[in-house]
């Protein structure tokens, strides 16, 4: 039971607000001896596990730190190349921390515009006339709820698959947006929302929804 994150997308597909509420990503640390039984590869300028799931380390996890030194893209903070470090026998035993990569702001912007087009295609491929775009998207790990307003703004919430009362929260977010972003004279339309009151009220609404959702189940 949890609400993971909130995205607000403007009518052109731009991300204008994003908030991570409860999105702790799993991390695993393990000490390895030579040779490494995992296969690592470079993907998207990160070092990810390509093959060899074990002890909670999954394909797709990135290297977050080696011997306590955190990573920066393909390199460690001290400038060493991760793949080279892992390939050298004298570095072993080695302790490597793996986890799902955290989304960068750029990736979030990309995902928001990606959803914007998926929404439109979902509407175009409809077998019934006058369909909306994607409203609920279900996966085994989360559920995505989307509410598009008359003016084309999309409120997207990622929750646990079992979270209840998300519809109410979507309406509430629109209300918060109308009250605290649109009525703010310093807010220009379709631009990223940087309003303190909006932030506070949105967080309060999310926490409230999480609690009542729990109580209902």
């Amino acid at each position, binding site marked *: 039971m949890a609400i993971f994150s909130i995205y607000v997308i403007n009518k052109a597909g731009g991300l204008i607000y994003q908030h991570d509420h409860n999105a702790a990503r799993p991390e695993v640390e393990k000490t390895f001896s030579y040779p490494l039984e995992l296969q690592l590869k470079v993907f998207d300028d990160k070092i990810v596990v390509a093959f060899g799931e074990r002890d909670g380390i999954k394909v797709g996890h990135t290297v977050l730190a080696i011997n306590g030194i955190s990573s920066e893209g393909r390199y460690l903070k001290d400038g060493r190349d991760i793949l080279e470090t892992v390939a050298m026998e004298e570095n072993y035993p080695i302790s490597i921390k793996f986890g799902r990569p955290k989304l960068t702001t750029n990736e979030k912007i990309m995902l928001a515009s990606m959803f914007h*087009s998926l929404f439109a295609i*979902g509407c175009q*491929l*409809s077998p019934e006339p006058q369909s909306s775009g994607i*409203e*609920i*998207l279900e*996966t085994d790990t989360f559920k995505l709820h989307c509410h598009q307003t008359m003016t084309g703004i999309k409120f997207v919430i990622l929750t646990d698959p079992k979270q209840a009362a998300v519809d109410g929260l979507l309406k509430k977010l629109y209300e918060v947006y109308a009250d605290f972003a649109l009525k703010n004279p310093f807010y220009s339309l379709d631009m990223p929302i940087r309003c303190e009151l909006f932030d506070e009220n949105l967080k309060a609404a999310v926490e409230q929804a999480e609690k009542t959702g729990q109580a209902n189940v």
Partner: protein
Amino acid sequence: MTVYDFYLFDRNGNCLYYSEWNRRKQPGISKEEEFKLMYGMIFSIKSFINRISPKDVHDGFLNFKTSKYKLHFYETPSGLKFIMNTDLTVGNIRDVLQQIFSSIYVEYVVKNPLTELGEPITSELFRTKLDEYIRGLPFFTPKSS
């Protein structure tokens, strides 16, 4: 409760089979274009989910709903993608799609030496069996219109 249409894609994005029952709106583009658009959408949804998910995904994408229809998705480990559009009242039909794979696709396509894998399915037997199966589903009741 009704079934609109069914798509079967291979792992390269070729549409192996398409069939429709109670579809009321055509997208206004050729079938080929529609298949490409559908496959592109599914492919992007999968990648979208893989990136945005806060936890590690196993099955990944299951279904999505709009205001009018629900799209169900099932992918086999070999990359075959089964897609079925139904109306909103239909629940989880993962087992139905799995059944289509195991007792219709495998039986009448994989076990048929005359079919070329990766080519659109032309087998009349497959067509009849699938049609029979889907018409027999408890939620298959054509809308009177």
